[in-house]
């Protein structure tokens, strides 16, 4: 339902690297995505995969893919899993000069896991139960530089920023609180709305929704709000 609405994908397929320490899961995602894309033109193309932090950094540096599907918990590195991969690949750019983008894929809903990868620089966070079709949409979104929020992540953001308790930023630039509009968008995403539906509900364009979500992502990455830093500190991310 949402794939159809997004503008026609770029003529060149999105180059994807899959990082997960479970071979069965990698095979499964590959098969599902291939099947989901079999109807139309291939949206993405798998150029590599890796089972641990060091192999992932090597593959990403070599292939410079558009999007990396990244598991949060990975062996190797300095023990921070996905966050280590993102740090290890800092500054890597694709052939056409865009930064490599990361979409975190995890079985976990634990707040500190979410915070860990998002603050390390991931552009989105989805759980592994996501349907293949939604995953394709998410990959395309991340490749375009937008952010991808699952309902659960949106709920977590509302909680962490105190927005559910009524704390609202007076200026948009404030990093530690959400603006009223951002709060509305997050609430709708938490209710299970697709970006398109959010746009319709709020009488704004999908592009504006994407802008709001990206701005929330930025706040999530840069905010020094206590709830966020506490988790980040516990994992030595800041």
């Amino acid at each position, binding site marked *: 339902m949402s794939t159809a609405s997004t503008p026609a994908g770029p003529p060149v397929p999105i180059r994807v690297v899959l990082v997960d320490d479970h071979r069965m899961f990698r095979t499964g995602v590959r098969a599902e995505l291939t099947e989901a894309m079999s109807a139309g033109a291939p949206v993405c193309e798998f150029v590599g995969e890796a089972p641990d932090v060091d192999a992932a950094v090597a593959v990403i540096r070599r292939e410079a893919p558009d999007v990396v599907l990244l598991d949060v918990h990975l062996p190797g590195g300095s023990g921070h899993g996905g966050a280590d991969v993102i740090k290890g690949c800092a500054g890597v750019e694709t052939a056409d000069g865009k930064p490599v983008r990361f979409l975190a894929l995890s079985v976990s809903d634990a707040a500190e896991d979410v915070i860990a990868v998002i603050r390390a620089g991931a552009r989105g966070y989805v759980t592994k139960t996501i349907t293949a079709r939604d995953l394709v949409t998410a990959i395309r979104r991340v490749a375009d530089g937008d952010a991808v929020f699952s309902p659960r992540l949106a709920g977590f953001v509302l909680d962490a920023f105190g927005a559910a308790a009524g704390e609202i930023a007076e200026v948009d630039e404030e990093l530690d609180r959400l603006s009223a509009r951002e709060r509305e968008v997050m609430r709708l995403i*938490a209710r299970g709305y697709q970006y398109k539906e959010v746009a319709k509900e709020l009488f704004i364009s999908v592009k504006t929704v994407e802008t709001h979500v990206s701005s929330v992502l930025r706040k999530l990455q840069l905010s020094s709000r206590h709830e966020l830093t506490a988790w980040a500190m516990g994992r030595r991310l800041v």
Partner: protein
Amino acid sequence: MPTPYETAATRVRPVAGAGADPALPPRRPPLVRARAAGWTPGVCDAVARHLGVSRRLVQVAFVVLAFSGGAGVAAYLFLWAMTAEDEVAPQTAGSLRWSERRRSALVLLGGGLIVVVGLVLLVPGLGVTVRGSVILPVFVIAVGAVVAWSTLDEAQRSRWLTGGAGGRAWVRVTLGAGLALVGILVLITRGRSVSVVWDAMLAALSVLVGALILAAPWAVRLWSDFRREQVAAVRATERADIAAHLHDSVLQTLALIQRQSADPQAVTRLARAQERELRTWLYAGPQGSQASLAAAVTEVAHEVEDLHGVPVDLVVTGDRPFEQHGAALSRAMREALLNAVRHGAAPVTAYVEIGPAGVEAFVRDRGAGFDLDAVPGDRLGVRQSILGRLERHGGSARVRRREDGTEVELRLPPIEGDPV
């Protein structure tokens, strides 16, 4: 909440496996100070954790020592200067190699010596005379104790504590204890005759007994504190035990899934139930009591999921105590969810926001949708159990038809007396 497989049975199983790993001696935490121990440097805390005794006990010991020739102050400063801050994960520090340990012990002794010499030089300058004959024996005692304690390695120490000691360990302990004893004797006699010492000891003893009587109530409280800490430790063990049981339940579910692999719906349901249980355990802990509204609505969603095998994606933010209005909301939400899984299509999503301005709950499905006015009047489902119920509790409900599905919105005002 019953799950398809019999977890109840595994849970009730007597804690026979509680001492399942007697071979592993409990690891003694390393002598390091926690980074955030408050405004004190955390020396007492570190020592207490290392020795596994009450922190207050250590504090008392330091204070008592401080009055006996200032040894407590010296020891405190010494430990402050010499113990590391909790920089690395505690487990890695425990596995230091022997040579490193010995080196650190040398550094420890050297540092202690410097501190003592410094104190001896410093104190007379302040007008207080502390003779070396006081400080030195105290220092010997301390060194003896440290040697006896620290040279025993983890396993030996626990073996020694449980009775059976190796020969070498005995030698070290005897050495340390002997040193300490010599120190005490030197401290007491200090060149006086034995009978004088005897009188002094008698006097000291009577003072001690008096002090004990005075301190008894306080000691009792100390003891009860200690007991409480012990109970907490037991709880932690219990928790670890249940985690082990969880592994059993996961394996059991996997076996069930393999046996029923022909029935995709059963497999989904089993997997979902197991996933949920594990998640609750991992991220919420056992404190998920029914006393909170968030826990109640979560349970409702899980129940519906179990009944129909349709996954419900629930997101809850905020929380508040569970009272009758909340109960009404969670029951109405149950009804809405049941409608969604029965008449709608997956994915069914639910979002509950509990804030100072009240509670809002949204249940959404992707079905064909239904028209409230078209529902015959004798069908009580939506009208009574959702709309009527919330209105009776001062809230409101709305059913919205969307182009791809239905969304039920439930609202409750804040609890009376709550700041808005």
